């Protein structure tokens, strides 16, 4: 019986839910010292002096470093030339959170006191806290190498003025994709131990080999003596593929002090130091006809990069503009983007990274076209969908060749769950009753690019390559260990990869372990991001398992004196097809695979061991259709989500329970972006939402129950057929929620409302309408 598609309980859970998980902060080697960071409280300021004397004089303080102490070290990796992010900034602080000094002490408490005792003398500089401020004429500048604050500008890829002039209708929309903080439960944590035998770094990180390679290059040391271990990691959402400065500082301090150095970010630090996500503004123009058919689309994306552009951050608008046409066949698409620096926390990957922004934009545009033409939003979607037989589909972007999907099929499946006509009738009835709450129904037919990926896709972000590694090693007793480079941070990879391997090997799921996260143990690896673990890494496990199984069959055939083609495996027994009595157990085959005298001619001992660097020819394209039903309190403006219907197409489902978990979590983050979360700065660049009192991460009790459905179109780029599902929810949910809110208010002439749709914003609209 196949385990693919089985609702198997997670192998990870007994450890994690009984408190036996091992996170970096749980590790406490002997003589471990603790690092604390002094951060800028100014958005933009010249640093006149840093007085460390008080801190140095404290008992238990081992080191206090400022920029001068690391002058020989390079800037933070992944920075852009001339706009480098210093590990410790010496001359100018460029955002609240910029590192000004680090302190190491024998214990965590002394370190915190010593950091508090460092006195920084600032001379404030004018700051730019928003895109509007950064792009204003004569705006204060952050990096002298730039002319102004624009790092990169791509003009419209084509001129569509003729198409727009000739179109029956046109409309425009300005959108803000609100800045979000990733807020994993575990913030950035690092433990560095630089001894005579080399450097070991334990880090809460999504791509340990990538970090190992980068650390070795950074310090000019050899990779063989540099080891990175990502033990249990408490969430990352993309933020833990960024090279946090603290990782390099802890290593440098460990080298200098000759003892392990640990750093655990506090939540307050995490809110300003861990890179943010989203932070885009869009200007969109659309041309369409009476039937709602879209003729041309023009999108300009302005990406806030924060104070220091990061290589990943620079890629965000590339992904947004590549996916700007969503599920739709739009004859002409022109895109333009601009990356801009501001005196704020740097912006990089956050669950969805560039794609939620695209789906939000195009799904708002669809509803705008519906509103302008009077055609129902469902019909506008159906009119414009790429048909199910329209794949492969070359988009306006060379990056995106959609290879599979059934967008109309997913929407139809959704409408089996949603009684749309009844909801519309209820909406009308409520409108007529001034005491009733308003009702709104919103849809999103979303599509994303995932499964990173094909050669070149991750190299562009500084990775070694885009394959993923898998090693399958059968042990002498017939159990198996899988080694994967796709180091997880909560996804359940240990479970899904064991399911995949069990199917190919015919070894019991309970006798398969999956190891990850340690560069001294795993051959090589890339990491978990861009919804790639199953689509690339899982496929690698399948390929390697198949190779091992073919060899095991050879040995079994030899032992059974049969031909290899006749060998099958059942209940961990190899036997000749049709003759179950003639059999040899897996454990025997495994045992003998290490004994030269037992092997068929030409086979080497230890050959039930295969390593694969799995390549895939294309990205994957998960898609789906969501519907959100909201109620709005007419007196207070408060939005309540009544129902959320979710139809996902992630191709083959390895484990439905884990897919639901990913979708529910992603949708929760999408709802959070639409209704709650917004990282805000005041005009001078001081964060206004730097605690979890002000930055509203919703709790489970704020979220609705979900009704889920599914359609399946297979991923043609791997044999599993799986597309990836880690980011889907965060891509699909925000437009569904906002479309519902706008629908509830459309009788007032509302055409758009920016995220998050807060009660006060809605109350202002409702009040204005009276």
């Amino acid at each position: 019986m196949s385990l693919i598609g089985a609702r198997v309980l997670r192998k990870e859970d007994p450890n994690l839910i009984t408190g036996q998980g091992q996170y970096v902060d749980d590790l406490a080697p002997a003589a471990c010292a603790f690092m604390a960071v002094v951060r800028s409280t100014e958005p933009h300021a010249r640093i006149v002096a840093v007085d460390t004397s008080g801190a140095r004089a404290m008992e238990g303080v081992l080191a206090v470093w400022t920029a001068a102490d690391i002058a020989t070290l390079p800037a933070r990796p992944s920075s852009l030339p001339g706009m480098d992010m210093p590990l410790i900034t010496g001359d100018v602080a460029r955002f609240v959170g910029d590192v000004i000094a680090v302190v190491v002490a024998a214990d965590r408490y002394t370190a915190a006191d010593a950091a508090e005792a460092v006195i920084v003398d600032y001379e404030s500089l004018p700051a730019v806290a928003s895109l509007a401020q950064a792009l204003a004429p004569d705006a204060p500048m952050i990096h002298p190498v730039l002319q102004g604050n624009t790092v990169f500008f791509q003009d419209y890829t084509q001129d569509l003025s003729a198409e727009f002039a000739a179109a029956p209708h046109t409309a425009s929309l300005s959108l803000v994709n609100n800045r979000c903080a990733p807020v994993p439960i575990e913030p950035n944590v690092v433990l560095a131990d630089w001894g005579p035998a080399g450097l070991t770094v334990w880090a809460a990180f999504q791509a340990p080999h990538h970090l190992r390679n980068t650390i070795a290059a950074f310090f000019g040391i050899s990779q063989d003596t540099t080891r990175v271990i990502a033990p249990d990691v408490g969430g990352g959402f993309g933020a833990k593929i960024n090279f946090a400065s603290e990782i390099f500082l802890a290593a440098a301090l460990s080298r200098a002090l000759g003892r392990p150095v640990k750093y655990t970010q506090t939540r307050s630090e995490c809110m300003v130091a861990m890179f943010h996500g989203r932070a885009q503004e869009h200007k969109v123009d659309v041309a369409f006809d009476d039937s709602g058919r879209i003729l041309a689309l023009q999108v300009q994306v302005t990406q806030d990069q924060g104070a220091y552009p990061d290589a990943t951050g620079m890629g965000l608008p590339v992904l947004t503009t590549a996916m700007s046409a969503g599920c739709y066949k739009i004859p002409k698409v022109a895109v333009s983007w601009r990356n801009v620096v501001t005196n704020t926390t740097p912006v990089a990957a956050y669950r969805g990274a560039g794609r939620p922004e695209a789906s939000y934009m195009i799904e708002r545009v669809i509803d705008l076209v519906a509103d302008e033409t009077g055609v129902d939003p469902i019909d506008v979607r159906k009119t414009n969908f790429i048909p199910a037989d329209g794949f492969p589909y070359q988009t306006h972007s060379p990056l995106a060749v959609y290879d599979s999907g059934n967008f109309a099929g997913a929407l139809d499946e959704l409408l089996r769950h949603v009684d749309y006509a009844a909801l519309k009738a209820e909406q009308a009835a409520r409108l007529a009753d001034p005491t009733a709450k308003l009702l709104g129904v919103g849809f999103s037919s979303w599509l994303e690019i995932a499964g990173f990926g094909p050669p070149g896709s991750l190299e562009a972000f500084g990775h070694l390559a885009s394959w993923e590694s898998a090693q399958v090693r059968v042990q002498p007793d017939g159990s198996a260990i899988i080694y994967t480079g796709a180091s997880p941070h909560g996804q359940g990879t240990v479970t899904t990869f064991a399911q995949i391997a069990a199917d190919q090997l015919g070894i019991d799921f309970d006798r398969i372990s999956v190891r990850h996260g340690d560069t001294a143990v795993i051959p090589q690896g890339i990491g978990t991001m861009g919804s790639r673990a199953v689509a690339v890494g899982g496929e690698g496990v399948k390929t390697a398992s198949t190779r091992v199984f073919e060899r095991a069959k050879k040995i079994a055939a030899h032992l059974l004196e049969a031909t290899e083609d006749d060998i099958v495996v059942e209940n961990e027994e190899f036997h000749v097809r049709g003759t179950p009595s003639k059999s040899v157990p897996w454990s025997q085959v495994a045992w003998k695979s290490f004994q030269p005298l037992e092997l068929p001619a030409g086979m080497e001992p230890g050959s039930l061991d295969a390593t694969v660097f799995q390549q895939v020819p294309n990205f994957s394209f998960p898609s789906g259709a969501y519907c959100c039903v909201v109620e709005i309190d007419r007196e207070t403006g408060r939005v309540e989500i009544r129902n959320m219907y979710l139809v996902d197409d992630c191709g083959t489902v390895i484990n439905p329970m884990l897919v639901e978990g990913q979708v529910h979590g992603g949708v929760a983050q999408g709802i959070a972006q639409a209704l709650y979360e917004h990282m805000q700065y005041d005009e001078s660049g001081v964060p206004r939402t730097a605690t979890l009192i002000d930055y509203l991460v919703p709790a489970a009790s704020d979220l609705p129950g979900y009704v889920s459905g599914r359609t399946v179109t297979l991923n043609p780029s791997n044999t599993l057929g799986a597309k990836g599902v880690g980011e889907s929810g965060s891509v699909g949910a925000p437009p569904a929620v906002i479309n519902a809110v706008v629908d509830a208010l459309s009788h007032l002439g509302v055409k758009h409302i920016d995220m998050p749709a807060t009660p006060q914003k809605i109350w202002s609209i409702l009040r204005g309408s009276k």
Partner: protein
Amino acid sequence: MGMIPARFDYKQAGSVAEALQLLASCDDAKLLAGGHSLVPLMKLRLVSPSTLIDISGIAELQEITDTGPVLRIGALTRHRVVERSKVVAQHVPLLAHVAALVGDPQVRNRGTIGGSLVHGDPAADLPSVALATGATMVVTGAGGERRVAAGDFFVDFLETAVGPDEILTAIEFPKRTGAGFGYEKFVRRSMDYAIVGVAVQAGDQPGIALVNMGSAPRRADAASRALASGAGVDAVAALAADGTNPPEDLNANADYRRHLASVLTKRALLAAGYR
């Protein structure tokens, strides 16, 4: 930044007398009850007392006593105990109802009614109950007990009538057995502090009090008077924000808060049985 408080001494008091003695003998000491307002401030280093005097073990301050006309609640009674108490539900049902709306279960298992009142946070829920019901605070100092009416207790932002060398020992709630009540707490996220809250106590001495509508917890005086004189719910609700100077923050500007105060007052009045 955050998480680790500055160094402090820690002492435990076994009785009120011992606590008073410790308070008098330490400079810059703070009483520690449930710690759910004080400790977060210390972690952010917004306050850094030299000494914490832990009073949470004083058994005599954790009792709920029915004295006939009033229910006397020891200052160290946890929110969770108040929420689940049968006598409280029977005689001061508004208090039991609101105690259950404070934070989340973890917070309610630690936080105390006295800590909540003495902290004097305008956004806290329980002060509004004390104001709406007309409770009396029992404050103990070196010179013995004194009684302060709830209306005189909340002085300003995080400031109450309790002096630096005094302890709030009990709160006396007049019984409101069988009378209607209502509480409306407006939040964006469940388990948060109120953006605006309104408490209504019905009965022969009705009262309306507001949460987060000024620098201190306060009664809605004009609305309370109108209610006592028999005005209808719309008229009373229209007066809810009278004389307030509401704070402004990311969730609500002053206008919105005033508006919410009157919407919530009407809802609380309806819940309390007014028409």
